[in-house]
């Protein structure tokens, strides 16, 4: 047994590294807003030129993130996709994909803002105005809200009737000038331009007109029902629409 192993006399570098790491972490939280803006700008431009797509895996690397609350989501296409409109309406309806495509289409290009922070600039969405579908169904006087259901079997969303009648709310069939793929919620998703993206329910399969707003999936878990970008969920992002 060595009476004086080298470590007994040494300097406590370990403690300094440990406390230094903690201090850096705290400093990072304080300095995050400017750091994040800088990185987003840099990575956003780098992602545009990156053929490997690896920058998409970096935090704030730009692009969409795939979120699904269900274990697995069935695939639907032109042969088996159906959208039902029911509830407090005079003429309940069921649309096939081709029927939706035959209706007048609206295209708009706006930013997409997720409540977790990522933002995808200038994204084109194209589809049928939700207000057109509501007019076709004949909404009854006592109605006040809509409830959206999805063929993932789990996700739900809601809008007030006034919100749903806005011109920038679509039943979207195309994104970035391509038919909506499965991963982006295709073949049909909701697109609520002025709100955080969780309102834009993917894999839309049902629209039910109701009397009052019934909070959707994420709203039952703490997110705001009226999810205006920049004016809800305690965030101050630039409005998208």
């Amino acid at each position, binding site marked *: 047994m060595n009476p004086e192993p080298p470590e007994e006399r040494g300097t*406590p570098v*370990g403690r300094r590294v440990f406390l230094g790491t903690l201090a850096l972490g705290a400093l990072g939280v304080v300095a995050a807003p400017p750091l994040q803006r800088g990185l987003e700008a840099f990575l956003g431009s780098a992602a545009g030129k990156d053929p490997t797509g690896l920058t998409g*895996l970096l935090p704030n690397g730009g692009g969409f993130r795939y979120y699904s609350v269900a274990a697995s989501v069935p695939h639907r296409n032109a042969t088996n996709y159906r959208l039902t409109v029911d509830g407090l309406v005079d003429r309940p309806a069921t649309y096939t994909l081709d029927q939706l495509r035959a209706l007048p289409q609206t295209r708009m290009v706006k930013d997409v803002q997720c409540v977790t922070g990522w933002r995808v600039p200038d994204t084109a969405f194209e589809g049928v105005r939700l207000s057109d579908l509501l007019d076709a169904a004949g909404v009854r006087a006592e109605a006040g809200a809509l409830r959206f259901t999805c063929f993932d079997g789990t996700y739900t969303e809601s809008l007030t009737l006034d919100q749903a009648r806005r011109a920038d709310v679509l039943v979207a069939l195309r994104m970035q000038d391509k038919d909506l793929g499965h991963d982006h919620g295709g073949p049909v998703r909701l697109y609520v331009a002025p709100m955080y993206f969780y309102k834009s329910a993917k894999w839309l399969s049902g629209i039910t007109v109701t009397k009052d707003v019934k909070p959707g999936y994420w709203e039952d878990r703490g997110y705001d029902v009226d999810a205006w970008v920049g004016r809800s969920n305690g965030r101050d992002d630039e409005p998208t629409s």
Partner: protein
Amino acid sequence: MTRIPRFTRAERWVHRTTALLMGVCVLTAAFLYVPELAELVGRRELVVRVHEIAGVLLPLPVLGGLASRAFRADLGHLNRFGPHDRRWLRAALRRDRRPESRPAAKFNAGQKVYAAWIAGATLVMLGTGLMMWFTHLTPIMWRTSATFVHDWLALTIGVVLAGHIGMALADPEARHGMRTGSVSREWAEREHSLWRP
């Protein structure tokens, strides 16, 4: 071949449970973060919950280990740096792999730096994670900042952790020591020449 005791049962269990919890954190993080894996797994709410629980439990093995005298002694060894550690780090920077230019006692300087850093990083992850979890505790602006730190530090930890595991894979006797508690005398004299167990 003489075996030299290196880790007691308590020390090994601290490492084992910490590694398991860290592994769960990394795996669930990947399921939440990498789009291809997120598509594969879905069930976002459940994965988030598992991630949160594993993260909160992560410091507990080390805290429990404080009851062990041997573990406390290890923390002392990890904390204290001597002149030989400086030599070890310089050799590492020069990529000098000869054992004689890498003097080390029970833990080498790389292991000491790693231990201190990963301990600090884990607590930063815990702090920022709690800020994201219990959003009412802090202003919303802080949650965005905490997410930023949590994301980037997660990436850094992933890289460093891969290095840690890679080095363990390259040294079977070191793994044997952590698994069974004892190492060969030859290995101890070569890799930890200043260690006097």
